[in-house]
């Protein structure tokens, strides 16, 4: 099990009903973690619509997770 921090923004924050959480997870990658959290929070956005960042950098969904990682799932952006 790994201890990770997850932050939520925008539509995901509203769907998760929380902006940040610390959690213990068996997920080995962000992809697995997102599936776990979708079930827990009822988020319906598929991962294909998102990007993911770990420790404030964009990463692949298959990057191995480590304890202490800070994970952010990024819904479609709309700056400007």
């Amino acid at each position: 099990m790994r201890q990770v921090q997850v932050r939520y923004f925008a539509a995901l924050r509203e769907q998760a009903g929380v902006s940040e959480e610390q959690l213990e997870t068996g997920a080995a990658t962000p992809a697995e973690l997102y599936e776990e959290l979708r079930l827990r929070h009822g988020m319906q956005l598929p991962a294909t619509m998102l990007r993911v960042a770990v420790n404030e950098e964009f990463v692949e969904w298959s990057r191995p997770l480590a304890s202490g990682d800070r994970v952010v799932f990024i819904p479609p952006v709309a700056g400007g």
Partner: protein
Amino acid sequence: MQKFSFSSATLYPDRYREALADPASGGYASFEGWVRDNNEGKRVLRLEYEAFEELGLKEGERIVEEAIRRYGVQKAACVHRVGDLAIGELAVWVGVSSGHRGEAFAACRYIIDEVKHRVPIWKKEHYLDGDSGWVNCERCAEAAHEHAHDHDHGPVRA
């Protein structure tokens, strides 16, 4: 000035421009995004910008540096508002100073295009009809509605 930054207060292009002034630069191109009163046929009352600032700062700075390198311009910068904005308020500013105007325009265009696609910023519009929505996230909205609907009829959370 920082190549990319966020501001939760009103933006002042005149101040930023001074930071880009350079005696060797003859041309200065800038772009400003203002809050419009309409989007896709709906009347917009106000909006909110939310950003993942730690990553946004890095990605924004990368974009500005790419533009400087790619177009050989003198200086460039971008500032993006976050928080609640009223109609007509300035949401984003981009400025580029350069010896030649063609490059200044091209770099300015590059920065605003890339910022819109790559920097983790989200815009929520509040409409006249009482509805609201996250822009570029039609399926997010759908998902949110379905979720709310499910929620009325029973718990979906673990």
